[in-house]
């Protein structure tokens, strides 16, 4: 484990595992509005409002232009890069009737079928 000293003088642990998001407070701040939008899909009325006008709904939640583009284009990796948390982003995927296997394939450059096959073969291993 590595320890870095940041400008506030507080030690902070950083974790660097290849191909892995560590959703920390910095990511949570970056993605707050995007995650808040996805969080709103807990209510059926909000799901309907989003589907009726996705762009306006994004504006209502104050998404950055990059976040809005990622949502409208369903750029799942970009959403995570912009601070989206998988459990929140998944609510948007559910709205599209997409599975977690579809997302797993999307994140790792595979079709859903290829990803399902990978899992049924025992999953991905580190090299």
């Amino acid at each position, binding site marked *: 484990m590595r320890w870095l000293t940041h400008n506030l003088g507080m030690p902070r642990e950083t974790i660097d595992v290849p191909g892995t998001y560590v959703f920390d407070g910095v990511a949570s701040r970056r993605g707050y509005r995007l995650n808040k939008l996805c969080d709103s899909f807990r209510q059926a009325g909000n799901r309907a409002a989003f589907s009726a006008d996705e762009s306006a709904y994004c504006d209502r939640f104050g998404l950055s232009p990059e976040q809005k583009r990622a949502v409208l284009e369903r750029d799942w990796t970009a959403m995570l890069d912009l601070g989206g948390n*998988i459990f929140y982003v998944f609510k948007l995927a559910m709205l599209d009737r997409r599975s*977690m296997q579809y997302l797993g394939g999307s994140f790792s450059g595979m079709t859903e079928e290829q990803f399902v096959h990978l*899992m049924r073969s025992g999953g991905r291993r580190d090299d």
Partner: protein
Amino acid sequence: MAEVIWALATSHVPSIGAAMDNGKTQDEYWKPLFDGYQPAREWMARNRPDVALIIYNDHANAFGLDVVPTFAIGTADHYKVADEGFGPRPVPDVVGAPELSLHLAHELIDDGFDLTLCQELDVDHGLTVPLSVYCPEPGDEWPCAVVPLLVNVIQYPQPSAARCYALGKAIRRAIASYPADTRIAVFGTGGMSHQLAGTRAGFINSEFDRWFLQAIETDPEQLAAMTREQYIRQAGSEGIELIMWLIMRGALNDRIHRVHETYHVPASNTAAGLAVFDNRLAG
């Protein structure tokens, strides 16, 4: 006097619940997992608790990212099943055990664990899937009351594995001082290895999982000594949920009896494990 009679460690993958809700448990994909559950279910059904203390994490269904409690406990007499984005699971709402919840909150806070208290809480698959693993066909109501205990495993830094194990030991002390004659089962949920996001999505480490399944009984101190980074490397970014099994383990006696275990890959994107431990060893 209250007593922990047994413990269930189990994955809480939503698709395990969906397989039950949609009558798919005998499909080729799901049959090995549910066949593996069967002996555990039969044993648990013969050893019914009054209350299940269910240690789990919310998945963006009760808590948002506006408030992130590290440890929280439900103190309500009723918990609604959450709408996670496609309507609630077709399972009964959950009946609470508020007297036990408040006793645990008081004792644990006095013991140095400053829990967040929740008087209103919608419970998601993290809690209802383990209940379904215990009791697949509850009918109109679950066969036991529930105390939900929630752990932040989503936003880093999660509580350390060592802190989780220490919380479990504090729960053991708190239950021992509960005066009512109550039979308690402790559920440790989540895991096993899995990673949902990033190019490493789909990561599974069966060797680690099988080692963990043994060590949770025989060497929990070693599991408690692992860092967050080790959990993420060994079990995947969401495999860190396994720290919740250590809260369960801490709440049990040092010596426990393994009733049954099973392990299967995959349950959607996850390695699914189950272990049941009898906590009533004589001597």
